[in-house]
Every structure is written in C-alpha cells, then in structure tokens.
C-alpha cells in the first residue's frame, strides 16, 4: 500500500519536474513571440537617396529596410561602379530611432558634409555623403511618425 502511494507520488514528482521545464520552455517561446511582434511593429521610416555619379548623372533610390550597404560589390543595396569606392564601403543603419552612417574601413573613406567620419554618425535630411568620388544626398520621409524604442505594454 505504502509502495503504491509512493509510486504515485514519484510519478507526480516527475510530472512537477517536467512541469517546471515545460513552463520554462513555454515562457521562452512566448518571449520569442513577443519579441518578434515588437520588432515587426517597429517601422523604419523610408529613406530616399540621390546618387550623384562623378560624370554628373543622378539617380534616385528609395528604401524602407533598416540596413543599407553602399559599395562597388554588386550585392550591395546601392552598387557604385567607381574605382574610388571600396567593395563594401559604408552602411546606413536605422536603430535607436535614428539613421546612422558608418564607414566600413573603406580605402578612400566616407565623408559626411565634407567631414571624414570614423565612428557611426547620425544623419538627417539634406545631409551630403561622399563615398570616394561619388556623392549621395539623403532625404528622410517625414510622414511616418513612430516611437521606435517604446516598450511593449506589460501584460
């Protein structure tokens, strides 16, 4: 009799142990879900970039993603066919509610409004970027107003 009770308790204890693990896994799963929902709710304000080739030709590009790379490599988001541009020259990233420009240790450097940058730098509308001999001018969409770093409401 005592043996059967103990057996039942042993099975219950095993259930409780796996209950602990099950809950831990469930919570972790929910955390991933929540995180993905938060990130998908964060909208990136669109950015328009006008590329000015050395010859004077210009072209306009519009992006709505959070990371844009500039370089001679055709895989870059803005491929620049110019000898003075490195393969992966610079990239523009959106985080902390700002667009940031960062030089990817390019040979000829990246200039923001004629000043050479060495650290990630915030950019705004109207800024002029120079990668080698190619110029890029930035205009940000004003119409999207969001609060990107807001915490999700505690549930």
């Amino acid at each position: 009799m005592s043996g059967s009770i103990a057996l039942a308790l042993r099975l219950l204890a095993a259930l409780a142990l796996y209950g602990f693990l099950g809950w831990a896994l469930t919570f972790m799963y929910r955390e991933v879900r929540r995180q993905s929902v938060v990130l998908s709710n964060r909208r990136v304000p669109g950015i328009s970039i006008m590329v000015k080739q050395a010859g004077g030709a210009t072209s306009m590009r519009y992006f709505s993603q959070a990371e844009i790379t500039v370089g001679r490599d055709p895989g870059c988001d803005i491929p620049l066919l110019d000898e003075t541009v490195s393969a992966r020259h610079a990239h523009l990233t959106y985080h902390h509610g700002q667009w940031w420009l960062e030089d990817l240790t390019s040979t000829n450097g990246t200039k923001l409004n004629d000043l050479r940058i060495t650290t990630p730098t915030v950019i705004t509308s109207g800024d002029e970027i120079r990668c080698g001999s190619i110029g890029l001018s930035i205009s940000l969409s004003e119409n999207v107003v969001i609060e990107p770093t807001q915490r999700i409401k505690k549930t």
Partner: protein
Amino acid sequence: MNDQTQSRLLQWSAVFLTLQSIILTISPAVRERTWDVDYRLSHWIGLLAWGVLTFLAHRALTRYLPERDPYLFPAAAILSGWGMLAIWRLDENFGARQALWFGISIILFILALRYLKNLLFLKNYKYLFLFGGLLITTLTLVFGTNPLGLGPRLWLGCCGVYFQPSEPLKILLVIYLASYLADRANIRLLSFPLLIPTLMVTSLALLLLVVQRDLGTASIFVFIFTIFLFIASGKRRILIGTGFFLLLALLIGYFQIAIIHTRVVGWLNPWDDPTGNSYQIVQSLLAVASGGTIGRGLGIGSPSLVPVAISDFIFAAIAEETGLVGTLGLIAIIWVILARGLITSLRAADIFRRYLAAGVVAYLGIQSLLIIGGNIRLLPLTGVTLPFVSYGGSSLLTSFTALFLLLVISNIEDDEPSPISNPRPYSVLAAMFALGFAACGLTLAWWSIYRAPDLLTRTDNPRRAIADRYVSRGELVDKNNQPISITTGESGSYIREYLYPDLAPIIGYTHPVFGQAGLEASLDEYLRGLQGNPSSMILWNQMIYGTPPPGLDVRLSIDLSLQREVDQQLGSRHGAVVLLNAETGEVLVMASHPTFDPNKLSEEGEFLLQDKDSPLLNRASQGLYPIGSAVLPLIAAQFGNESPTEQSLRVFYEELGFYQAPLTDMPVTSDKPGVNTEMLRVSPLQISIAASALSNGGILPTPRIATAVNTGEQGWVVFPALEQPKLVLQAEAANEAAISSVEDGNPYWGHSGVGQLGDSVVTWALAGTLPDWQGAPLVLVVALEENDLNTAERIRNAIMNEVLNQ
C-alpha cells in the same frame, strides 16, 4: 511579466520539492512494508527554510533587478533544493549543514543585490581579488586539511568549519580574465599581453595538480582559460590547440602522475578492478542502473553505498532515486541555466560584462559536465562538485556568486547590446555544451536501461543483500515439510536461520559477505521469488519497492529423520553418504562430513575458508575420490568373467556417467573427460547413480533433490523430471548381479572396496535393495576418507537396516 514568469517557475519548484519531501517522509514505510515505522520528518525544516529563503530572494530580485532574466533564479533554486533533500536523505547532519549554507548563500546574495549591483568594482580591483584568492589557495598548500581525514588536502579549516579556496578561485579567475581581455580588444595570438595570463593559468593548474593532486580544479582552470581565449580571439585553432595540449598532458600524466594514471585506468577498464581503484565508479554505475527509468523514490534506494555520495557522487545518488526521468530533467535544468547565461552574455551592455557572463557560463558548464560525465563513466573521474547540488559551503557560495553575476548582467534596461565582432564562439560554445549534455543523456540511458539487468546481477552489487533483509526468502523443507532453512525476523532485519546445521555442506548458505553456496545458490531464483511468481508481480515489486517479491518455499527430497540417523552413524569421520531412490533419483539422504554451522558464518567464515579439512565442500556431490573397485558388480554384470579392455571399460564408464557432471539441481563436479580408467576419480553421487542400475533393473535415474515449489496461488507445484532414465544394463544381468552380491543373508545386496591414488584413499561401501523388494528401490553409497573396510561396512549395514525397517 518577468516577475510572473519567475514566480510561476518557483511554484513548480516548490511543488516538486514538496512531493519529494512527502516521498522521503513515507519512505521507511515503503522499505519495511508496514505503516508502523518511524517516519522521516527532519527534512521538512530544510524545505521550510528553502521556501522562506527562496521567497525572500524572489522579492529582492523583483525589487532590485526588475529586468533580470526570469529563468536563472528558479533553475538555481530547484537545483539547490533538490540537492539539499538528496543530502538530507543521505545524512541528516550534512543536510542541516547544507540548509544552513543555503541560508548564508541566499542572505549574502540578497545583500549583494542591494549593495553590489554595479559590477565595475570587480574590474577595478581585479588584481586584488586574484592575488587574495591565490594567497588563500597557497595557504592550503601549507595548512590544508581534509574534513574526512583522508584524500586531497584542499580545505582550510578551523573550529569545525571548512572552506575550500579553490572553489571561489574559479570565479576570481573568471573575473580576472574577463577584465584583462576586455581591456585588450582584438587580441592577437602569440602576443606578449597573452603571455602573462597563460603562464599564470598553466602554472596554477600544474601547482594544483602536482602539490594538491586536485585534477578536477586544474582541468577546469585550463578549460575556462581556453574558452576565454576562444571567445576573445574567435580563432578555432585555440580549441584544437588546447585539445591537442590536453591530450598530450593526459598522455604524460598517464605515465608520470599517479593520480591521472589511476583515474584513466579506472575509466578505461573499471571492471578489471571493481573493488580497488574502480570501486567508486563501479558503485556509481550500479546506483545509476538500480535507478532504472523512474528511480527507486527518494529514501527508498541505497545511494549511500556509493562513496562520497553527498558531494562528488550526488548525481549518482539522485540517479538511483529519481531514475532516468529525474536525471534527464536535472540535465535539462542545468542546460536552461547555461542557455540563459549565454543569451545574457550576448545581450550584455559592454565587453567586460559579456566576457564575464560567458566565463561564468563556461565555469558552470564545464564543472557540471566534468562531474556528471565522471559519474557515468563518460569522462575520467575528476573530484569536483556539481554546482548548486553537491554538498559544500564553498561550492554553494561560489555557485550563488556565479548566479548573482549572471542575474546582474542580465538586468539591462536599455535593450541595445554592445556590438559583437565575432559571434561564432558563442554558438560554438552553446553547441559544445548541448552535445556534451546530449552525450550524458544517452550514456545515462545506456547504463540505466540497456545495461542495467547485467549490472544489477553482479555479485558486488550490495543491493541484493540489502533486499534480502527486507524481503522474506523462501524456506527449504524436507519431504515431510519439516523446515530446514527458514527466514526469521521482521522486514528490515530478516536473517536466514539453518535449523539442521549438519546439512550445511549440501544446503549451503546465503550471506551478505560470503555470498551463496550449495542449494541456497542453485535454488536462489525460486527462494528469491524471481522464478515461479507471475512476471507481472515481479515487475510490480521491482517498480514500487525495487526488490524481488517474497520468495517461494522449495520442498527437498531429503528425509530428515533418516538424515539424522546417517549423520549420527558417520559421526566425526571424514566422508560422504548418499541414499538415493534408485527409480526416481530423489536424494533421500546426503551427508558430507566434516560439516559446519552456517548460523555462525559471520564469525567463522574466514576461518572456514582456510580450513584444510574443507568443511564447506559438499563431498557427496563435489568431492572426487579414486574409483578403485567400487563398481565391480556392475563391471561383472556387463562383461561377465572376462576382464574388459581399457577401451571398452572407458566406454562403459562413459555410459555410467563418470566422465561428466550429473545433470541435476545441485552443484556437482566430475573428473576431466578422457582420464585413464585407473586414474579416474568420481563423486559418491556419481557412484550412487551408477549403482542404482543394480536395484532398478539396469536403469539409471536422474538425481534430484528439489521436488516441488510452493507457488502460493496454485499450491505445491512438482518440478518436472530433468531427463529421461537411461538403460545401461540388461535387466536380467542387473538382477543377477544384485542377487549374487548379497552377503551373509542380508535382505539387500552389498559391495565394498578401497580406492587409492597417491595420498588420496577412500573406502567405498555400497548397498541396495534387491529386485524383489516391494517398496521403492533404494541405493546407498558410503565413502570414508580412510582405508577401513570394516568401519565402512558397519556404517553401511547400520544405515541399511534402519532404512529397510522403516
């Protein structure tokens, strides 16, 4: 949300630990199978302390670290509570001490949360901490002691409190390496800045190994350093290089350093030396095997059989009582801590904290893997503690320091982690730990399920002898149901009692130290209840008690009243007597003198084993004597007056079964096949089978001593015959030979002779009923270890008269 997750997980831990405590409380009742026992209650104090302290720590965490990782603390809490109960179950004193240490750890933990949330002071005073730690460790080289009195002297002690400095030294090393490497980003291999910590770590490890013989801590230092270098540099060749270096060190250590040699040999071939160097690991594996799938239940197994079960082998102790189900859960919880720790490291706000978290994870992971792997023979044994679980104040404090560091680092308000230059080491580290623990899980399943049946029947498994104390063993009774061997006492203290000690060489004994012999050994499966009971009943008992069901009584063909007569006749002479039913082969009397008293085996066993007269030997079925002229009437019946050639005589002896051990249910021996007929030795039992031909019309019976088993539900079930009787002589020739062997008008035939080979002398005296005997045909063989025809014949005639007049 964080607080809710943490609180829910803590509730599950509390439910789990409470259920374990209830099991521990009622465990004495399960062991002794009665409700009238002393229940175990003291551990509830420990559980209560655990509950209060955990609640306080939970409150402090919600208050001071609102954004911490919510999984780390509950995982640590359930592990330390589980460890505390496991220790309490093994030893109440150590359990209470562990509860005290848990209390001290939690209070310091809460104070640290209150005052030491900013970890930068660690970075600023890193050399102070490191040299403090080194200084104390150096002190143990000089003043070190071991609380147990034996073994490596790794503790500093005073006034009953012992402290192991190498435990916190691991954390201090992690802090030092984290801040040293964080100050030197993009470190290059083979550069000067790396030389200082490399030299320091290797010399420290060597010092620990050579002076203190602490293999575990030394290897943990090397592993932690390697992981740090790998994370800081991102170069995989570091891992390959260290692997190579460790292999080399292992090889050198194998030949040069005694402790490494012992451990490696014990790891590779544990079965060669199961009582010496491999004693610990073999006992640990037996505990794992005994746990099986769901374990024996807390308090119901026998984990205290494993040496140092409270610290180094706590994992084996837990495996025995919670089984594969429990150990896999335990490994999964450790894995949760490591995984959340690595996530914490990746989310850390700066490189110092990132390295610190990764180092803490490396320390916890490596140490857990080393000791779990060592317990289950996946890795060579290294005597380190299982973090959070093992007994020990230093170990528990260090584990909680590690937990504190991880929790503080995980408390990030700003969710923008510092950028990472090379993320690969983190995924490699996670994969390494995942693989390591998966290997542990598979090895556990291998020992506890696949290999368990083999392991548990090993003679060095003390659980069989323990089960015998709690489960009643079947009785041995004679043909009239007179008891011969019985089990007396109550559950928990059952002992075997032998009511007729003169039968000892035949009945044998079952003893926790000397093992089993005689019929107690050959009929063990029935007496232990493993045969003859329904298999569902055996399985059920195994599941709820971890023991076989109550044993079954076995009836022997021995007739105690005749046996008593024979023993009296034989007296103090050395020799053997067999009285056989010539038709059925049932052994009515079997005597072997000198004899011994199996009730006094505990005191006299060692002496009996050395005794030159070999009282433990069953002379009747295992004693081999020169055949001499013992079977002359049979030879005359087969060959007439011609003397047979060596070749034809050997064929005849083979027919009579002299060259092979008789097929029967007791231990028997025979001479080697192919021995010259002149040189042949036979046992009295073999002679009695052959002589049966004269009283049974030329037919040899198959001897047997166990006739029936009492299965309870179906009553006495008779054992089937082992083999068909065999015709060796024509009936007329046999009858004629019997009648012509009648001496002096006796109502039975008789024959006697002497066999001699070198120093070995035996006097054979045979007798048997005549063909016209109305009762069961009987055959008697008397073998005396001396040359004395008169005495042998006198004993034979006295017995025969007694038997035939009954």
